[in-house]
């Protein structure tokens, strides 16, 4: 069953389009929401958390409309983008207050707040005023308030922004752990390799339209009109490059590093097969053969470029 359903969903602000007739289902687990600035990611998250209303169509979260629906919203944890804070509060006061507003009482609220702060690694700083926090600390305390009422769905808008590599690693681990425990997560980010570390399930939007959805590898395989780039780490790169250059199916070859050959092809399956034969025939020593551009960056770049065309 889909956690979030977008049904011919449109959202516009005057003449500016936020989302344009989007129909999609976001399933359980972790889904990465990707897109450039102004693509409509925050609009989608605003709609999913009932802060924005659709201009046309509908959005369903756990089968219901999130607009002014406290029962449904109490199953969602929302981490907004930017720095929306009552900055005179300490981290602990902030999380505790939102625990209480989420319906937790007294001791249960205090325990939940302490636990959420611990999980995000903010315990040593919880007694300090938020106004004195670094950007990374602010991100983590926002995530703590997201977790405090143990929601079934986390909606995280750019949660890695401003965090240092250690914090990113810890947060990635935390999100994976939560997902393993059954929490659904929709996470947006510009830091694509971090989303890639978190999930292969992606939803890409650009100019208010979905440009791709699904497993990142499946998405990549659908792009038959673009050459696949294959990387081969080999002991005789120049010899391999000259052989590859003679193939009709190969559209480009380069030797970017002393032990690496990159080549482009529109027929990856056939190229892999013929490459195996070539390696055996020429007695080359190969350390790695891999698709060079199945990373999210490559897919993202290609899809948004195609969408713009």
């Amino acid at each position, binding site marked *: 069953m889909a956690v979030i359903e977008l049904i011919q969903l449109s959202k516009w*602000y*005057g003449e*500016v389009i*936020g989302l344009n007739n989007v129909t999609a289902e976001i399933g359980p687990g972790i889904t990465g929401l990707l897109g450039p*600035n*102004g*693509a*409509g*990611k*925050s*609009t989608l998250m*605003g709609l999913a*958390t*009932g*802060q*924005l*209303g659709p201009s046309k169509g509908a959005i369903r979260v756990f089968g219901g409309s999130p607009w*002014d629906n*406290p029962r449904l*919203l*109490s199953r*969602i944890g*929302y981490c*907004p*983008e*930017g720095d*929306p*804070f*009552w900055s*005179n509060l300490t981290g602990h006061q902030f999380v505790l*207050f*939102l625990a*209480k*507003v*989420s*319906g*937790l*009482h007294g001791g249960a609220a205090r325990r939940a707040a302490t636990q959420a702060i611990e999980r995000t690694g903010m315990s040593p700083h919880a007694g300090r005023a938020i106004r004195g926090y670094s950007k990374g600390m602010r991100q983590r305390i926002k995530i703590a*308030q997201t977790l405090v*009422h143990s929601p079934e769905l986390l909606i995280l*808008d750019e949660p890695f922004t401003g965090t240092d590599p250690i914090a990113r690693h810890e947060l990635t681990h935390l999100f994976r752990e939560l997902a393993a425990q059954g929490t659904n997560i929709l996470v*947006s980010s510009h830091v694509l390799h971090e989303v890639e570390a978190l999930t292969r399930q992606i939803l890409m939007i650009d100019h208010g339209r979905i440009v791709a959805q699904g497993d990142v590898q499946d998405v990549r395989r659908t792009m038959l009109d673009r050459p696949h780039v294959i990387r081969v780490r080999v002991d005789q790169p120049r010899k391999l490059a000259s052989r590859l250059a003679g193939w009709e199916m190969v559209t480009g070859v380069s030797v970017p590093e002393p032990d690496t050959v990159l080549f482009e092809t529109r027929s990856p399956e056939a190229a892999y097969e013929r490459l195996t034969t070539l390696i055996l025939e020429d007695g080359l020593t190969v350390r790695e053969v891999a698709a060079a551009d199945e990373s999210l960056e490559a897919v993202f770049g290609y899809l948004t470029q195609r969408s713009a065309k």
Partner: protein
Amino acid sequence: MKPAFPIGAIAALFLFTIRQMLRDAKFWAVAAAMFLPCALALLIRHFHPPIKSLDPVWHLYHGLSQFMFLMGLVPLACMIYGTGLIGTEAESKTIGYLITRRLRRRTVLLTKFAATTLVLIVACGVATAAIYASVVYRLDWQSLAPKSAALAQWNPAHELIVYLSVTALGVIGFLAIFSLIGLLTAKPLAMSVFYMVVVELVIGNLPARAREYSLIHQLRVSAAASIPRLVNLFQLPSELSAQLFPANGSGVPEVLIASAVALFLACVLVTVRELTPSKVARD
């Protein structure tokens, strides 16, 4: 299963709103302004020749309470807080935390309204009492007593309670009106000033029935209904006096009905409108 009526969440937001108000420098600036009539009274008393009759005392007390405090400072404080009741949270984007939780949008509005009303009523109440105290401070009651028969009929405690009640009524009414204005328009302060000038100061003082639509008029009526002396106190022409303080009606139900209608409309608006500016919502 969580309870259908989230009383704990409401209590948390109520206390949080009060706490945030009291920790904000803006509140203390507004509170200090509330004491301007009191300071003015002390100043006048200081430079005024010794008071020989009760008339100047009454003029000072009721003049400051009615015209400077009730018609000036109370609406001003309510304007500052009413227009920002939801708007301030929307501007800082913290509203997102509140409306994506256990509380309905209208509950957020009403809880914040109740907390703000309570704080302002207490602040205005203290200031009202301070006006009275500053007017009667070091008054020579012994020398006044034989010269004024009116003194025997004067019940300052009653008048103070009336002013406290009318002030509380004014806070409820103005805060409700300004909360509505805060949700109606993108420029709530400008709109509120326009409302104050046109509805409260111009229409509210017109010698016509239209003035009954102004809160200030109704508050004046409610004060006069409990302090009949007010009608003739300022020695205004009898026709004007009758218009300003009509004998019929108490003003209380009118203010409460107006407040309820304004709050109802504010609840409707807060329920149907997006509280996040669209430019904020787009990434």
